[in-house]
């Protein structure tokens, strides 16, 4: 690969990764410094410097770009939190069915009581990554629970239906509230 081709490819990669507003000034800065270094030292040293700048800058610029697409990372954090809630719920079901020697999880309040603080914690942790993630998590849980309630053919005790509808989303919203109350970070 020729020097010019290598520069073009590296610049193209960097400009694709950089946020739109920073693309032109950033590439212009690199070209300006490359020209200065080519004149002051050797072209190959300047090319090495240029490549090093591209390699070390790429992940940082990609991070800025992803951080700007805030809704994507909020949905991503909420989805991960939802998976964590599902794992916690399965673990609670498994633990109750083993401890109580009941073959299946039979609408026990204990399950909901155990799950409640777990979902608060998951909501709190999700809020550390994206501030609105626990709120999205709560809304997702409301939608899923509503769909499940409407589509189930099993006869679910009314108290359990109401509790199941309230506990998960409420816990997620409490997690969000707790996160917003914590002291400011440096």
């Amino acid at each position, binding site marked *: 690969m020729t020097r010019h081709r290598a520069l073009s490819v590296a610049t193209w990669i960097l400009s694709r990764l950089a946020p739109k507003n920073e693309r032109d000034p950033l590439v212009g800065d690199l070209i300006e410094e490359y020209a200065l270094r080519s004149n002051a030292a050797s072209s190959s040293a300047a090319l090495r410097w240029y490549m090093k*700048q591209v390699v070390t800058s790429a992940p940082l610029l990609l991070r800025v770009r992803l951080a700007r697409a805030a809704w994507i990372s909020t949905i991503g954090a909420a989805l991960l939190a939802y998976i964590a809630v599902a794992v916690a719920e399965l673990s609670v079901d498994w633990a109750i069915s083993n401890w109580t020697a009941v073959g299946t999880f039979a609408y026990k309040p204990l399950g909901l009581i155990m799950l409640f603080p777990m979902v608060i914690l998951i909501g709190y942790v999700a809020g550390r990554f994206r501030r609105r993630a626990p709120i999205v998590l709560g809304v997702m849980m409301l939608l899923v629970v509503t769909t499940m309630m409407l589509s189930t053919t099993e006869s679910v005790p009314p108290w359990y239906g109401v509790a199941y509808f309230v506990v998960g989303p409420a816990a997620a919203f409490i997690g969000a509230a707790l996160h917003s109350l914590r002291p400011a970070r*440096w």
Partner: protein
Amino acid sequence: MKTRDNPLGSLEHVVLLAVMRLGSDAYGMTVRREIESATGREISIGAVYATLVRLESKGLVKSYTGEPTAERGGRAKRHFSLTADGKGALRTTHEVLRKMSAGLKGLQPT
């Protein structure tokens, strides 16, 4: 708590100081050079821009785009300058550092 009342992260602090030192000549590459020459530490242009973008979103710096020039491949510079909140954040950080280091022995330049 306002942003200007929060002490800055170490790279944010250094980048703000570089912008202040450079005045009207503060743009990505000059900020990078200023930091390298003052601290002796290599820093990538990506790290400088990522920090400047964060500082701008916090309202601590503002920017404007200059005219495109031929030596930059027809690309414009983006000039940065401190806002009043940026100066306030620097003062807060320096005050915290002064209080935390007051009375400590062994911090004087050798």
